[in-house]
């Protein structure tokens, strides 16, 4: 009887998620056209990076790692600080909406917004207008593969792409713009759950606001902070749309998911694409286990 209630849902999940997942594993050990068995060659190619001009796997892995670390390390603390700050003003709802709006719009619209903001011509692009207003040089924010510190000094066309590229930092900043609202809203709701008596008691005892933040708010909010962090880590690993619509992975901004898409749908190498997808899935598994463990402990509680 319960199976009847779940049948449509299970059918959809099996067809669109479970079967394709298994099929991807199978294709990752087959050749480009999924005809012949090639063993682990596709995985070896990811490690050895034989064609960096066609598909630079090393750059994609490094960029994805940077997304994982920087995107999360900026968005979570920023959301937390904003949650504390907005909670103390009367126009809390309006301020939170302003920061949350980017979550409601599509990556496509966001890409139009940011291509326009970052336009090279300083009389059109807002960011370069501000930069030149303060005496700086207009910058090709999305194309510039140089290290960010050289931005302050001088730039040349023959610059070697650094491990940290300016254009990747810019893309991650756009990601932060889109996702801070999510962190803010969730953390702010958690904040409302902290009893005001506890905070007042600490104040009466002479704790300053930093001590309250550090020793009461952060420890009490820990479970919520973990939820937000795990969600953002998963999103950073799977990041696709934002990079795809803004740079298309050009100028060495590819991440694993965009490279997968290129290999599968443009270069028509299904084996190489599938191997990248499997790498992505394996990277997400520890986070998934973390999620499930958290979920089970909540169930038990």
């Amino acid at each position, binding site marked *: 009887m319960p199976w009847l209630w779940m049948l449509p*849902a299970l059918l959809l999940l099996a067809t669109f998620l479970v079967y394709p997942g298994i099929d991807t594993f199978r294709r990752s050990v087959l050749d480009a056209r999924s005809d012949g068995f090639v063993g682990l060659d596709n995985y070896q190619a990811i490690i050895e990076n034989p064609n960096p001009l066609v598909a630079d796997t090393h750059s994609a892995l490094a960029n994805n790692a940077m997304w994982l670390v920087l995107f999360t390390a900026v968005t979570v603390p920023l959301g937390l600080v904003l949650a504390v700050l907005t909670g103390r003003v009367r126009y809390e709802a309006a301020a939170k909406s302003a920061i949350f709006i980017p979550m409601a*719009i*599509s990556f496509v619209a966001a890409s139009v917004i940011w291509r326009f903001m970052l336009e090279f011509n300083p009389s059109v692009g807002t960011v370069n207008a501000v930069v030149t207003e303060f005496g700086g040089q207009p910058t090709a924010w999305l194309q510039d593969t140089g290290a960010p510190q050289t931005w302050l000094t001088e730039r040349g066309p023959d610059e070697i792409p650094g491990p940290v590229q300016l254009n990747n930092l810019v893309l991650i900043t756009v990601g932060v713009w889109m996702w801070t609202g999510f962190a803010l*809203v969730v953390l702010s709701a958690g904040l409302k759950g902290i009893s005001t008596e506890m905070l007042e008691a600490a104040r009466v005892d002479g704790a300053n606001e930093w001590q309250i933040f550090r020793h009461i708010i952060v420890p009490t909010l820990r479970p919520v902070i973990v939820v*937000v962090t795990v969600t953002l880590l998963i999103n950073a690993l799977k990041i696709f749309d934002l990079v795809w619509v803004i740079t298309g992975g050009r100028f060495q901004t590819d991440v694993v998911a965009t490279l997968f898409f290129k290999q599968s749908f443009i270069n028509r190498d299904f084996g190489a694409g599938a191997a990248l997808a499997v790498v992505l899935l394996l990277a997400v598994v520890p986070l998934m286990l973390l999620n499930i463990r958290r979920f089970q402990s909540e169930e038990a509680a």
Partner: protein
Amino acid sequence: MSLGVPVPAREGRPALGYWFRATWARLPLHAAVIGFAVLWSVPTVALLISSFREPSAIASSGWWTATVDTLTLDNYRTVLDQRGMGRSFINSVLITLPATALVVLVASGAAYAFAWMPFRGRGLLFLVVVGLLVVPLQMTLIPVLRLYAAMTVNEELPLLGGNVFGINSFTGIWLAHAAYGMPFAIFLLRNFFSSLPRDLIEAAKLDGASEWQVFWRIVLPLSVPALAALGIFQFLWTWNDLLIALVLLGDPDLAPMTLRITNLVGSFGSSYQLLTAAAFISMALPLVVFFAFQRFFVQGILAGATKG
């Protein structure tokens, strides 16, 4: 920065000097909050203002120099009439509404079984469903595309257009969106359903109500906030999707707005008068939905991120 200066109690009348000192001390706080809110809004405001400017003005001067009397609706006219945005707006609606309804319908049935119908392996199966949340969507596209290619019914669907099923069909993309939204939907609804009072549901069953009656008469009416939250989420995801449409809908007559704008970017990369107007048309409905249902929206995030 001073964060929490004692705020004068609401009752009683604090002296003016005290009020002044308190406000002065809170100035950095206001500056920070307003500063962030403005910083976060500037890009969207820039887009909105530019979409009303003359093409020549956009190409030669910044949006911050615009004055009210130079604004025009021409860009919107061009985009809607000549660039197929009107048709793709309708396509977006035709894709999004049924897909959203399908998710809510199918997921609520499954979530009810997970919450209130004990059976062997229930916990494990639920964990598997939740685990599917992290499967990268791109990974599933090739197998699904092949499946659809084999199952495509090359006849026109009455009323809506496109194929009856498979590639280039509304029915095909509805099912795909419904499936991809399913793990989150079941997760959210099951958590909400199982937080309903047990006594109520058991009393109804003792009185002889069938599972269907309990579901339809008790669980669903009590879960309107969760259903609304889910509906809004699914609406936004489907409306904002590019990837699935890119792969499953090749026919330009069926393209939703995200796909149409992406093509505009490809062919008119720096014609910002077209791009900004098109982008704003695509944002209008999500923004209306967001502001109208903000309360549910936040609830939905909370139900999804933390339990209950």
